[in-house]
């Protein structure tokens, strides 16, 4: 039997569709909602989203693969995103990324062996006055030092 969306997610998608004049326009928020519930957007998820919105699966696939925030396969339980762009670069963001990666024993883009963290180098997060900066599971940690980064990692469940 083909996998199906949960009733909760189906309802959420219908609410999202009310915001736009076309159902296809609800694709980004729908993928975001699906990713929140399913963890990653694998082939089955892409197919279900396509079915719910009435658009071809290839259309969903091309969007899901184009934006950096969509996950196509499962990653670590916590996402650690460290900015190394302009202002963070000037304040040691690249050195910080290296140090965090060394501490966790991964390279940027990789997941720790215990599946706890995925570390990513990201582009400007819009927090340049409080650089360097990282996000852990989408929450900002600003005016970052290695000590502060380590503490944030340790307090992640």
């Amino acid at each position: 039997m083909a996998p199906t969306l949960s009733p909760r997610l189906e309802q959420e998608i219908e609410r999202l569709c009310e915001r736009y004049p076309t159902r296809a326009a609800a694709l980004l928020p729908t993928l975001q909602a699906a990713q929140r519930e399913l963890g990653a957007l694998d082939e089955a998820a892409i197919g279900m989203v396509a079915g719910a919105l009435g658009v071809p699966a290839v259309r969903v696939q091309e969007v899901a693969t184009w934006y950096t925030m969509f996950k196509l396969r499962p990653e670590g339980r916590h996402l650690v995103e460290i900015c190394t762009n302009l202002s963070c670069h000037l304040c040691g963001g690249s050195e910080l990324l290296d140090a965090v990666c060394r501490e966790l024993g991964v390279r940027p883009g990789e997941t720790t062996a215990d599946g706890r963290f995925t570390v990513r180098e990201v582009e400007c997060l819009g927090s340049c006055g409080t650089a360097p900066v990282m996000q852990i599971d989408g929450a900002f940690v600003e005016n970052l030092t290695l000590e502060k980064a380590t503490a944030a990692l340790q307090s992640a469940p």
Partner: protein
Amino acid sequence: MGERLLTRNWGTPERHALKSYLAAGGYQSLKKARGMEPAAIVDEVKRSGLRGMGGAGFATGVKWGFVPRDNPRPRYLCVNADEGEPGTYKDRYLMERDPHMLLEGIAIACRAIGAQTAYIYIRGEFHAVADRLETAIAEARGGGYLGHNALGPGVDLDVWVHRGAGAYVCGEETALIESLEGKQGKPRLKPPFPAVVGAFAAPTIVNNVETLAQVPHILERGAAAWKALGVNGGSGTKLYGASGRVERPGLWELPMGTRLSEIVLEHAGGVRDGKRLKGVIPGGSSCPVLLPDEIDVPMTFDALMAKGSMLGTGCAAVLDEETCAVRLCLRLMRFYAHESCGQCTPCREGNHWLAKIVQRIESGRGEPGDVDLALEVAQNILGNTICPLGDACAMPARAFLQKYRAEFETHVRERRCPYGSYPIRPGGREITG
């Protein structure tokens, strides 16, 4: 520091709540706008001299005037809250700290252009900011400032938050529209311009957050009085920032037209640790870098263009003598190579080649002639792409290569980067405005 409009509520407890905004006289301009003809609102904004604060600097009232009055399709307002330009951190604080000021600006703009639906396209990484906007929208609906009859009897207004998913190019207005429609964010050819054929093939105005947040103030005090707050040819006030190697990184609301030297040397306290200034990127990574003897310039669109750079978003990044120009250039080229949408060959290929050439120079594998080769690549990108992303890569590349040419050549000659690694060094301050 002059008068504060955008940041005037930032010192208030619960500053983001509707009750705080109302207590400070909020939504009075919307009430005024409900009694005005749409054309009169457009004229008032035209007279104010307000220009697009996302970086393009196009006259806001003129843009609004492009919406055809005889088109039977619905009209849309898209709020550009994508804030992806590296070095930029202003709209985030406007939305986080005083979301109702933006919502009031949105409502007035919608009345001016005849739109009954607005989408706030906010970058996906601003999770908490987007949540705050959703809360503020619900509050404003409850208060009758959005929703049923918000723009007058029988004229409803729906405002929706649309979260992006990680793509710099979606800050370009036609890419933003494509993304809103649920597609890859690939910019469209213009014309037709969005004001005529935009979102869902309907007339659409795309305005930046800061631009819209100024609109209630223009109506509150009148175009002439608002305009007079600017200096050196600027109109009104502006959020200016300075980050990077300064003593006190921050964000300040100052008269539009304040000099870059004043922002860097006075408000930001100058270069940190008493080091020498090496350069300033005036308004985000796409703006060509200025040398220390070029920063005594008013931060206006026109004055910076005359200097061969751009105002951009008005958030400056400061380089000191210990900053390697090649390494910074490389970081920016990697960014533009990553963010190219891939439609136009000059940008898709050229940005990557610039990153590759600068990478080999930085890592000590550069060849004599590489600087000229990079300049040639940059030249072949400029003006040859659908959207400005190619130019946004080529212009700063050219400025780095030309203004710090000796440093690039030293890297090639000595076959190494003469600079050490950077200290991890936060500014350590809160953004106070």
